[in-house]
């Protein structure tokens, strides 16, 4: 397999590494860059546990190859809080029990984050569409939807600037 040099901006910081062109972004993030918030639930894009934000879009990182990630700006949950201040999504998820076991939470948070980047006032249907690819086996999704809605409201009110670095 051919190794290639890959440059990414991860949570605002430029990174450079060598990886096999066919290695998944999921594995690069977890194994080479220490981003263990990125979870593997199926490895084939069925569950959404590995969702990260890549150039402003939510993607299943298990389906993205190293070569495709070259040059991209990537945000993971590790990049959501800014100087220890939680992002409104993180606060809402935490306060409203928008998870139980928590394994789906990072992917769910990143799908929601990408949604709010484009759609600051999402409708319920838009929220559902954004997390349609994120499976949660513990909750009924109700708390997730309400948490995203609450975070969107807080962001609009500007109570706190979004914690993530500029994407």
């Amino acid at each position, binding site marked *: 397999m051919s190794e290639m040099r890959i440059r990414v901006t991860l949570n605002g910081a430029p990174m450079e590494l060598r990886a096999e062109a066919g290695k998944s972004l999921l594995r690069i993030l977890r194994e080479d860059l220490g981003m*263990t918030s990125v979870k593997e639930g199926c490895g084939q894009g069925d569950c959404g546990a590995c969702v990260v934000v890549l150039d402003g879009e939510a993607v299943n990182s298990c389906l993205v190859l190293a070569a495709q990630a070259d040059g991209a700006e990537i945000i993971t*949950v590790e990049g959501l809080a800014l100087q220890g201040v939680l992002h409104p999504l*993180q606060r809402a998820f*935490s306060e409203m029990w928008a998870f*139980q076991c*928590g394994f789906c939470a990072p992917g769910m948070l990143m799908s929601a984050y990408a949604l709010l980047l484009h759609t600051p006032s999402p409708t319920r249907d838009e929220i559902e569409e954004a*997390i349609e690819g994120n*499976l949660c086996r513990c909750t009924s999704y109700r708390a997730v939807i309400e948490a995203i809605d609450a975070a969107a409201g807080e962001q609009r009110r500007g109570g706190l600037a979004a914690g993530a670095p500029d994407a």
Partner: protein
Amino acid sequence: MPLLVSSGAGDSPPERPMPELEVVGHPAAAVRAHEIVTGRALYTRDLGIPGTLVGRLLYTPIPCGRIRRLDVRAARRLPGVTAILTAADISGENSYLYSIPDQPLLAFDFVRFQGEALAAVAAENEEAAARALEAIEVEVEPLPGVHDVLEAMRPGAMQVWPDRPNVHSRLVIERGKVDRGFARADVVIENQYLTPWVEHAFLETEAALAMLDNTGTVVVYSPGQSPHRDRRQIARALGLPEVRVRVITPAIGGAFGGKDEAHVQIHAALLAQATSRPVLIERSREESIRTHVKRHPVQVRYRTGALRDGRLTAIHVEAIGDTGPYLGAGAEIMACLAATVFGPYRVPAARIEACTVLTNNPVCGAMRGFGIPQGQFACELQMDDLARRLGIDPLEVRLRNGLETGDEIPTGVRMRQAGGMKGCLIEAARMAGWDRRREIERAPAPHLRRGWGMASILFTVGMGRNVPDFAGASLDMALDGTVSLRTGASDMGQGAHTALAQLAAEALGVPLESVRVVVPDTDQAPNAGPAAASRTTFVSGNAVLRAAEPIRHTLLQIASEKTGLPLNVLGLRGGRLIAEGETLSLNVAELAREAALQSRGLHADGFYAMEYPEPHPPDAYPYAYSVFTFATQVARVLVDVETGQIKVEEIVAVQDAGQVVNPAAALGQVEGGCAMGIGYALLEELIVHEGRTLNNSLEGYLVPTVRDVPPIRARLLEYPEPFAPYGAKGIGESSLTPTAPAIANAVADAIGVPIRRLPITPERVLEALERGEDGRVR
């Protein structure tokens, strides 16, 4: 948002004798919420240890056969391959599963199901591990196997085991005069019900990281529901004393019963022992679905006799469960079904038979509900059938038969607290507008039919009489008044640690933030038994209260000495000393420091074993349950009679919780149970053909997405449970149980034909419409 009510129609909830609660009953964030939302919660595969080897298991190529050749010599010589183990390399016992440990860790003579492991590999990296698996030479001579449960029961059927009958057990529970009950019945109805194999589909597949520490102990990190039992099983296989094994439970990504059995912990430990290196085994999703235990598919024949007014006279139930080739807890699950299949009703006479049958199909075991959902599904469809037959409203037929406190059930137990039965039923009917449902459009379009259905269930708490059911817990107060809580009970997302922390805070009179739950670790925490059977809040909760008592007593004694006030007027609340409602200047931290100065310890262990003080009839079922929760759900569905598609429009879920410990978490359990129940009702079925599952992915095996879950209106009722901590009891499993029968009854209401087989797919709806009521199995 708190949908808590403490009053409802029916038996009114008893007056609360408890003093005002400060922490219990109040919303609190999960103890690990911050770590989860920041991505720092560490699950097993997130624990990076330098030099960790990749562990993989070689699984059988075919579900059933005789192993003719298993040659690992060439594979062992490959570069990067550190160790390959087969059955011959296991120094201890080559078997596992709890209750009846009859599954080999590594098969050596026969393979009996598709998930059988043949060899364990440890390699420097994934590529080397994959090459090793390829290079192992395997020859398994195919054998036909037994794949049909009824076939397996026939005399002369092919044997799954040469020396064991296919029908492992036939449990009979009988109470009252059944023949007479049917003889005096005005109506007798009999139906057959079928439920499928169901997959847990926890988001985190199984994993275990094993290594040796500097005391010669094997340390295993793994998501497990029963760390002390896992320790025991690892020790048996490695031939070590139990104290030479340490099991640590990091964050668990869902379990639902599927991590109650050991999965890859023992294999990882064997490889670590063989290599003296850390070894991580992770199952892929495909491996996970192929290997771990499933919810039992069950066939239930249910016969119900009743008087014209709907009152039950007798039931006769025969249930057959396909448990696969290995027993583990299989027979206990069928027994649990049998000991509850009469539902939350007064049944004067019952004969219940439950068969546990061995086949070469997937191994079945614990999954949220432990056999009860299958039985209650049948029971609740029977009740609706009875209501239809007699022209009585489904609500009315349930109320006329509903259990009350003091009633005896067919296991010989008298109900300690059955207020939740009618309480939940009436409240759910009220919330759903049950009486007014006929005023709403039944056919909003020519091809659509709307229907309402209800299901009312009973669920057990604890392992039952004469079954070990105990927990320890320990508490340590530091000099600043903060508290470590050590428990062997796992939190797999159900919120157990948050609930236990709340109970500790309540009992000690400290703020919740002062209590830290230590990661379960068999080296540190007392055995709490499995996080199963909806028992953790009750059993571990009581252990926590017992540990808190002496610490609180010491603190108050010191306070009494310092203030000169008598002990009986003093209390602790929110970390402050109080006397007859007044807050004094002393706080818990000061009292804790004073305790240390006086050399008085602030550590205590609590131990609790489930109590059954009531006399039990000697001829009654010996393992009967005495603690129950009740739940009623009402489903409203819209069925498209052209396509067979079912849309669940709404679910109303009312759950008896004894005493709610954490409203947000409890509602999450109820709603999450409904979501899983919707999957059970409409979507989920492992397709098994000749012992192979054909849908080994989350693309092929559908679990509910956000689009599949309708609005759920949930409410919790509080009927304090005797002996329970502040009256609280588990609700995580009971909330799943009514959903499928409520939906099935709603579909029957919509299309006029009951469908007695899960899941209720569009094809089955169309089939049912075609055959009509007359074509039903009698």
